[in-house]
């Protein structure tokens, strides 16, 4: 590695956007996770050749893009090994090469020059940062003051290295992201000194021992809750570091994700076109799902399984899974069978299952509640993911849950802690979902006038509530329900509306441009709304929104605020969910059109059953949330203002 690095000619090129390096630098296994100092990462900021170009960049990139500050690092790698890197790196100052820049940066929290150097390399995305960068000049474990960019300080940094400067996350395995929430800043500041001491001690020890890849986990900066700590996640097998929303196996060769960081931004979804990862995850899988054979090339990064045998397989494993709590198992089976669908329903089912888990939980001897429970929850989450990939609402709920667990004061007894957690879950469900829905319904009903023709697509529980409420208020309107194969979700909605006496029209999505001229408003639900105003919802929504826009019909998206996400997605390809291809091939009850039925394995024919799509923000007139009616451009404002609030409740 060193050799490679040295020979590399690094031009002074500012690399914008995410860059994949085709450096043949396979991430070392376990050692990588730790401090692997800059060495491992110099050339490849992005961890690796494993990642195919279409993937979503790993969290650090996310956070960089979102200009979050990183919180922390792992232990400081030895100075000597770091030296040569700086030379290389100097030339790359300002480049958006997080790997290079952050690694081995021993930013002393109090040293402003170091901070500014840090800012130098990070200057690029520092400047692009939005929002909370004004957090103090020093960041606890790993944030950088990105306010100024000073190149000359770089050389100073080298000089500093050998001193025991508490490393800020530089250490290898670190995620290069700067993810720093201001809350962490505040918290960390209080324990900085202690941490610094322990860090220095460790550095010295490390320099002496030249040991690698070990992280001074809890020992380090022991002060304070572990979440402030740079917890190097040992190996992917270490569930404690958990917090991985998508299953800890994904982290695999990644850097140790820090807890705060994970709280802020979810880890990337696993890219299923990476065979190595897939194999590893299979080993950990609770039940076996054979992968579908005939897959569309463009969507190889998404999981797709043979649907026929999944349910029976899972059911047969029922008695074998004693590590699985029955409530979670039940929810998993419900997801797999499609009995529970819809963002809110899935989220509530999952949270209720977790409540039962917490109630039945008892800390095994020798372990702490916080770590063990988090680990358990992570394993349950991986199970649920195997049943059906998480929706964003579930992701946010899990993050909330984990942050609540992590924030439990250590003085609470087990029963108190369990009661507190259950209470939190109740409160979350109540405030963020049930009450939020009521508020949304109230706001949306003001937009329904007499004589309106309202169009809706698929079946969204919030939209249904709105229609029923407006009807109760006595407004005269009629509804057009647009539906599509293969799920025909609109039929259930139609039945319920008719039962309440609303006058409805039912049509399929191929007629939407025909019927749009008589429509006055379009109400759509969403699985999630992303930071650039893009709405991520059931496939077909984008179509309806586009046609509505062409006819100048206002499109109203009704979505609770807990479903908002900091991610930005530009198309429907990079992240989606694939359903059963047999559903498309077969039309139930119509033997005459089933000619596709047995051809799912044909070489020249691939079926694609997407579940979600992304609606661009220009088609959306307004988003109705529990915070009121906002334009799509204000989604990041809500995320910014209120994400902290509920994570910190």
């Amino acid at each position, binding site marked *: 590695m060193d050799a490679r690095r040295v020979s590399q000619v690094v031009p002074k090129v500012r690399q914008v956007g995410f860059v994949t390096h085709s450096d043949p630098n396979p991430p070392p296994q376990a050692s990588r996770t730790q401090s692997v100092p800059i060495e491992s990462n110099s050339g490849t900021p992005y961890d690796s050749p494993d990642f195919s170009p279409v993937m979503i960049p790993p969290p650090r990139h996310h956070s960089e893009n979102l200009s979050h500050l990183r919180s922390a690092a792992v232990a400081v790698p030895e100075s000597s090994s770091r030296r040569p890197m700086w030379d290389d790196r100097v030339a790359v100052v300002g480049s958006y090469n997080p790997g290079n820049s952050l690694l081995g940066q021993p930013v002393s929290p109090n040293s402003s020059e170091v901070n500014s150097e840090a800012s130098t390399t990070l200057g690029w995305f520092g400047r692009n940062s939005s929002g909370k960068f004004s957090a103090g000049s020093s960041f606890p474990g790993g944030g950088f003051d990105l306010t100024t960019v000073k190149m000359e300080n770089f050389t100073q940094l080298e000089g500093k290295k050998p001193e025991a400067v508490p490393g800020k996350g530089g250490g290898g395995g670190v995620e290069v992201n700067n993810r720093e929430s201001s809350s962490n800043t505040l918290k960390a500041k209080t324990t900085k000194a202690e941490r610094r001491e322990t860090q220095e001690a460790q550095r010295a020890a490390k320099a002496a021992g030249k040991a690698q890849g070990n992280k001074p986990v809890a020992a380090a900066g022991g002060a304070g809750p572990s979440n402030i700590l740079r917890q190097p996640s040992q190996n992917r097998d270490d569930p404690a570091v958990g917090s991985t929303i998508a299953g800890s196996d994904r982290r695999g060769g990644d850097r140790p994700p820090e807890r705060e960081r994970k709280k802020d931004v979810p880890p990337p979804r696993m890219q299923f076109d990476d065979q190595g990862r897939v194999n590893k995850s299979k080993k950990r899988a609770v039940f076996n799902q054979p992968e579908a054979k005939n897959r569309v090339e463009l969507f190889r990064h998404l999981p797709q399984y043979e649907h026929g045998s999944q349910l029976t397989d899972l059911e047969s494993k029922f008695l074998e899974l004693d590590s699985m709590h029955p409530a979670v198992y039940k929810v998993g089976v419900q997801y797999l069978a499609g009995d529970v669908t819809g963002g809110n329903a899935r989220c509530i089912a999952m949270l209720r299952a977790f409540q039962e888990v917490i109630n039945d939980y008892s800390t095994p001897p020798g372990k702490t509640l916080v770590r063990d429970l988090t680990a358990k929850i992570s394993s349950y989450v991986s199970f649920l993911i195997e049943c059906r990939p998480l929706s964003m609402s579930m992701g946010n709920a899990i993050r909330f849950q984990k942050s609540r667990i992590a924030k439990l004061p250590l003085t609470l007894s087990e029963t108190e802690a369990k009661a507190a957690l259950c209470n939190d879950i109740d409160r979350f469900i109540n405030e963020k979902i049930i009450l939020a829905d009521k508020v949304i319904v109230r706001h949306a009903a003001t*937009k329904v006038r007499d004589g309106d023709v309202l169009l809706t697509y698929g079946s969204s529980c919030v939209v249904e509530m709105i229609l029923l409420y407006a009807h109760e208020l006595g407004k005269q309107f009629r509804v057009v329900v647009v539906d599509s194969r293969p799920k025909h979700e609109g039929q259930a909605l139609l039945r319920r509306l008719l039962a309440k006496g609303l006058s409805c029209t039912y049509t399929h999505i191929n007629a939407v441009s025909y019927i749009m001229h008589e429509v006055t*408003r379009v109400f759509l639900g969403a699985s999630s709304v992303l930071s650039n105003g893009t709405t991520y919802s059931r496939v077909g929504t984008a179509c309806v929104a586009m046609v509505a826009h062409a006819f100048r019909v*206002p499109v*109203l998206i009704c979505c609770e605020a807990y479903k908002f996400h900091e991610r930005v997605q530009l198309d429907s390809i990079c992240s989606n969910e694939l359903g059963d291809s047999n559903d498309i091939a077969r039309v139930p009850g119509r033997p005459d059109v089933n000619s596709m039925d047995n051809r799912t394995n044909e070489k020249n024919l691939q079926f694609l059953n997407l579940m979600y799509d992304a609606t661009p923000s220009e088609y959306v*007139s*307004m988003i109705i949330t529990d*915070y*009121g*009616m*906002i*334009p799509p*451009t*204000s989604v990041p*404002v*809500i995320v910014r*203002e209120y994400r902290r609030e509920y994570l910190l409740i």
Partner: protein
Amino acid sequence: MSMSAYYQTRAAHHGVVTSDWLAQSQEAATRAVVTGGQEIVDGGKSGRAFSVIDEFNNWRKQPDLAEAVAAIRALAAVIRNSEAKTMMELEIELKKASDSLKSWDTTSISLTAGCDLFMRYVTRTSALEYEDFNSARSRLIERAEKFGEISYKARKIIAMLSQDFIFDGCTILVHGFSRVVMEVLKMAAQNKKLFRVLCTEGRPDRSGLRLANELAKLDVPVKLLIDSAVAYTMDEVDMVFVGADGVVESGGIINMMGTYQIALVAHSMNKPVYVAAESYKFARLYPLDQKDMGPALRPIDFGVPIPSKVEVETSARDYTPPQYLTLLFTDLGVLTPSVVSDELIQLYL
């Protein structure tokens, strides 16, 4: 037909009077007083509440004072006259007064926005401070008084911010008589910039005539157009300047009838549309289309009698969606339309 009180006031300020209008305004005025009295039948407070409307009317008559400021001054008067002994009681009184003001004229956006703003300030301070009642009360009064100055200063700030956008030799199209825009042009003239102004007639209240008058006094070359000549002259225009009756959550504006039209023409010809509005005009409304707002009607005098079976579109205002606006000049700075929602969220949530 009913007439929006808000537009009545504006017409009064402009001093462009027709006999028709006079008759209607007389009638409207007496009606307003009566309804004002009727609304205020809340237990025991009728005297005070009634005076809110009166106070408000007094303030409103001053031509230079914005509606929102008048409302806030009236609410300050309520505080002064109130006999409440605790913050909670005072808040309740204020809420009642604010509600009655709002309901007295439901069409005025800046009135509603101003009341909401003040109520928000009151609830925020009362929640945070545990000081004694009297000092809190005097602080509220002081704040309300300051608001008047803020309004005036706001206009100055906006005028200063917009100076950079007016270059020598430019042609500005102006619609409606906005005091803020007037301030902008006045300052530009004082800074010895060479520009000329095209102003639309602004039927039916013909506020454009008054604007032309004022500008002529400042020695600014003015050209009057009828409303239909906007597209015809849009070629020679460099920028469009309008004020706003209200700025809504999407970043769009509600302004005198005709603004939407002009914005559409300007947008299709790639001319920038600048809006000058104070920040207290930001309202928590979100109209989806033209008809989604409360109606504000204003009778139109055609000069000839109209047969009764002919309907007349009498709406006094329209909604311009944010995609047709380029920039908003406010006392918070020069903003793009999407920032309005950001500000509102921070303020109200």
